[in-house]
Structures are given as structure tokens and as C-alpha cells.
């Protein structure tokens, strides 16, 4: 058992445990914290695959910025323990076996057809130095378009989250005159 495989299993176990914990917890803040654990574990997996730049971005953008936004909104809205509602019976009787069969099929196909060639640790250098030329030459246009997307998202968030203007009283006839 190589070190690579042991590290993969350790990070994978943390990720899966966090994902299941997200499902099991009832308070949204606990779900958010377990999602942060999943993202940190995935950053470790990226490092194993040699994607150093992505691992750093994963920690900074995902586990940092996005999840801080989530935690901030949870605290802003004072979200409490979620109320449990009864699911429909047909969803349980058909959904659980369906999900089991579907996941087994996918696992079978993946294990059968994706080959057994191993992915070497750090086989593909994803350091910032190798990513940058690709990002700023080949993918320059998409990269610039994402900046427009971010700008639109910022404006949309500000417009949506800002308080609706208290509508001024409709001008009466006398005022119009």
C-alpha cells in the first residue's frame, strides 16, 4: 500500500464523512462546517493529483470566501433547526431502491470500463507557473468573460439583497395639479 493510496483513502474518508454529516445534521451551521471539511479534504486530493494551484484556490475561494458567505447568511437570517416534514410514501418506496440501483450501475460501469491505469502522484504539474500561460493565452477570452460574469453577479446580489425602496405614496390628483 503506497503512501499515495493511504493519503487518498484518508482524504476521501474525511470528504465522505463530511458529506454524510451534511446530510445528517439538522442545524444549517453544522452542515456548513461539515461542507468546509469536505472542501478542505478535496483540496488535499487536488494536491495528490498535482493540481497545486487548484488546491490553493479551493481553500481560498471555496472554503474561505463562499463558505464565509454561507455562514454569514445563516447568522444574518438566524436560521434555526430545520423542521422535519413527512416525505411522500411513493418517494420512499420508489426512490430508495431506485437510488441504490442507479448508484450500483454507475459504480459498476466506472469500475469496469475506466481501466486500471493508475494516476501517479503529481504526474501532471498544476503549479501556478504552468497554469498561468494556459489561462492568459489559450483561455484568455473565457477568463475575461468571467470577470464580466462576476461584475454582473455583484450587481445582482446588491440589487436583490438591498431593501426594497419604500414606495412613495402615489401622487394624488391634487398633487399632480
Amino acid at each position, binding site marked *: 500500500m503506497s503512501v*499515495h493510496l493511504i493519503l487518498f483513502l484518508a482524504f476521501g474518508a474525511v470528504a465522505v464523512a463530511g458529506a454524510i454529516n*451534511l446530510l445528517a445534521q439538522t442545524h444549517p451551521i453544522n452542515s456548513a462546517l461539515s461542507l468546509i471539511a469536505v472542501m478542505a479534504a478535496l483540496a488535499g486530493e*487536488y494536491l495528490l493529483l498535482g493540481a497545486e494551484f487548484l488546491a490553493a484556490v479551493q481553500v481560498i475561494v471555496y472554503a474561505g470566501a463562499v463558505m464565509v458567505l454561507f455562514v454569514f*447568511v445563516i447568522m444574518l437570517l438566524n436560521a434555526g433547526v430545520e423542521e422535519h416534514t413527512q416525505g411522500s410514501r411513493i418517494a420512499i418506496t420508489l426512490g430508495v431502491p431506485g437510488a441504490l440501483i442507479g448508484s450500483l450501475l454507475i459504480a459498476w460501469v466506472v469500475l469496469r470500463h*475506466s481501466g486500471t491505469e493508475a*494516476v*501517479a502522484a503529481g504526474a501532471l504539474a498544476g503549479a501556478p507557473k504552468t*497554469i498561468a500561460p494556459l489561462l492568459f493565452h489559450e483561455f484568455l477570452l473565457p477568463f475575461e468573460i468571467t470577470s464580466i460574469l462576476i461584475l454582473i453577479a455583484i450587481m445582482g446580489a446588491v440589487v*436583490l439583497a438591498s431593501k426594497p425602496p419604500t414606495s412613495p405614496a402615489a401622487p394624488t390628483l391634487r398633487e399632480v395639479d
Partner: protein
Amino acid sequence: MVPLSYYLVLSGILFACGVAAFLIKRNIITIFMSIELMLNGVNLSFVAFAAHWHALAGQIFVFFVMVVAAAEAAVGLAIIIAVYRTRETLNIDQVNLLKL
């Protein structure tokens, strides 16, 4: 040395957990978080395929997915705040009408 299929199975498990949480959870914020979990699962398979086929473009694509996810999180949470302001609830079962 880890086979590619292990990474794919892990990413599939994460995606399945995300789908299950999306369907089971009743809090809008948690449902939104499970979408992020699904995106993360897909990102892992992108990086694994990039390493497998020695194509750095896969890692660039993950970068773009992260950017879009960040924008989506900002807009989505703003929408959640707007919904909470009008409905005074985060339970998805009570938000069943487009119009108040």
C-alpha cells in the same frame, strides 16, 4: 499510485450525497449548500481526468467552475435573503407559490 476509478467513485459518492441532501433537506440554505457539494464532486472528477490524460485544460475548467460557483453563491444567497424578507421562513415547504 491510485487507479482513476477510485477518484471517479469518490466523486460519484460526493455527488450522490449532494443529490440526496438536495432532495431530503428542507432548509433553503442547506439545499443551496448541497448544490455546492455536487459541484465539488464534479470538480474532483475533472481534476482526476486531467491528471489521467495529461490535459491541463481540465484544471482550467475547474477554475471556471469555481468562479461560476462563487457568482452563483452570491446571487443565490441574495435571493434567499429576499425570500426570507417576504416569507419570514426558510422552510422550502412553505415557499410553494411564486407569488405572495
